[in-house]
């Protein structure tokens, strides 16, 4: 069994995020990157599968300034191979571009499962897994919180979350792409002594991919939430407040 984990670097919100002079991108000097929380869960689920089935775990990350910290941490936790994928792009790619890059990096490799966090804080559309599955012509299931491999039958049983506390068990043919919502246990701790040892002796492989053509999405404006103008507070008895609300709606021609 071969498992691939896609690990995205996202800005660390603890350090604060500033917008650059163009007003279209995050100022790279103001941030440091850390592993996306749900990708950490995807790695944890892959490591749990490795413990149960002796699967091999390989981790792929797009190149950023702190990518080696993430990849060495993955090695220290038990990944078998880690790869920094170089895109040649100046800025962090959108999910469509990232999916193409990963598709070219993974195409033809014998992976049974590709796991990734179902979404990331800097791109909440959660489309990477589905887009990648489309490019690789594989099935995709998102919002997964449990994976069981029945590799001899060429399938996996996955537990998918639905709104309202519901969940479903689905059978998916391998190979497949999974969007992880939560691993079966919180991501494990890696002792710093082991991490520092791996940083001295471990290898982060580098994979150069051909730069994708122009990104299909262009950011026109990036901005922090803007403070609105002061709200009007209504006071009085419930009947009086109700009358005021009715008058306000009528003034704005929102009542028929």
């Amino acid at each position, binding site marked *: 069994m071969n498992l691939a984990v896609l690990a995205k670097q996202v800005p660390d919100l*603890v350090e*604060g995020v500033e917008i650059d002079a163009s007003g279209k991108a995050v100022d790279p000097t103001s941030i440091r990157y850390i592993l996306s929380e749900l990708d950490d869960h995807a790695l944890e689920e892959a490591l749990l599968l490795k413990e149960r089935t002796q699967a091999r775990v390989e981790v792929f990350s797009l190149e950023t300034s702190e990518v080696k910290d993430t990849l060495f941490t993955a090695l220290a936790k038990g990944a078998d191979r880690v790869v920094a994928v170089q895109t040649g792009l100046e800025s962090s790619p959108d999910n469509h571009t990232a999916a193409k890059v990963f598709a070219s990096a993974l195409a033809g490799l014998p992976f049974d499962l590709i796991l990734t966090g179902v979404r990331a804080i800097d791109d909440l559309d959660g489309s990477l897994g589905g887009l990648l599955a489309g490019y690789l012509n594989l099935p995709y299931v998102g919002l997964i919180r449990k994976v069981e491999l029945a590799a001899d039958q060429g399938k996996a049983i996955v537990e998918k979350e639905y709104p309202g506390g519901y969940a479903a068990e689905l059978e998916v043919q391998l190979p497949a792409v999974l969007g992880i919502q939560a691993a079966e246990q*919180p991501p494990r701790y890696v002792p*710093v*002594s082991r991490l520092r040892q791996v940083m001295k002796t471990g290898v982060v492989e580098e994979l150069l991919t051909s730069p994708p053509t122009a990104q299909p999405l262009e950011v026109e404006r990036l901005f922090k939430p803007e403070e609105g103008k002061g709200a009007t507070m209504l006071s009085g008895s419930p009947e009086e407040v109700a009358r005021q609300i009715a008058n306000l709606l009528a003034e704005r021609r929102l009542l028929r």
Partner: protein
Amino acid sequence: MEQELQKALQNTYLYGNPMGQSPRKRAEWAKTAGVSVPVISQIKRPVDVLWIVECYPSYEPRNQEISRKLARILSALGVDFAILGHEERCIGDCEWLAGERGLFEMLIERNIEILGKYRFKEILITDPHAYRTLLNIYPKLGGTFRVKHYVQFFAERLGQLKPLLKKKPSAAVTYHDSCCLGRKTGHYDEPRALLEAIPGVKLVEMIQNRESSLCCGGGASTIYLDRYIQERAKDRLADRRVQQAAATEAGILAVACPYEPSRFEDAVKITGNEGKMIVRDIIEMLAESMGLE
């Protein structure tokens, strides 16, 4: 590993403090101190006293108040001091005692490097755990510094301090010997001397005091294992200790460790002693007596 402890260790690795706060905001508390709190990298000159504020006094709101009062006392005494500001990181006591040796060594290497950049005569430190670690463990790993906990530092300046202590506290006082200032480093007399220098202080001792003092149950990372311990133990040490304090009928439980105010204030509520006893750091008692609130 318990999630709270794991999070505290991961935060310390990433940000240099167990709370997971931004290192850039480490000196935010000082902005409302009302006195100048110089950062050593900015003033670019040697100082007499480098004050290592440590994590809880830097970030935890209850302790930030105490840090501001300590700054006012230093200022009132005319001490030439500075802090490390955004360069300060956890000294590493909890990480060492939680068995996270690698993280502890990483913190020590970094702290020795930062401290080596600056010139100062001595280190003043707020946290007894960090004090003990700097005093006893850092020298074995190549970092030897003249370091004093604030109870020592102010006890040495009692002659200067005493005329400034004017207001009387509202109730009798009992003092809790923390593990690291007491049994580990033997500072039993200085905190008591400071308290007794405050006009009108009547010091009453708990049944377990000095060498036989009861641990608050917060050191060595157990502060991150409260839930874990509560599920398994009959009661919490902090609750038991507060009951000992309540038995003295003192209205003030005085402490000198940044873990205690929130731990004991919770314990005061849990043991039904709210309204009967308050918890005060010695710094707060000195500042209040000096009119530096």
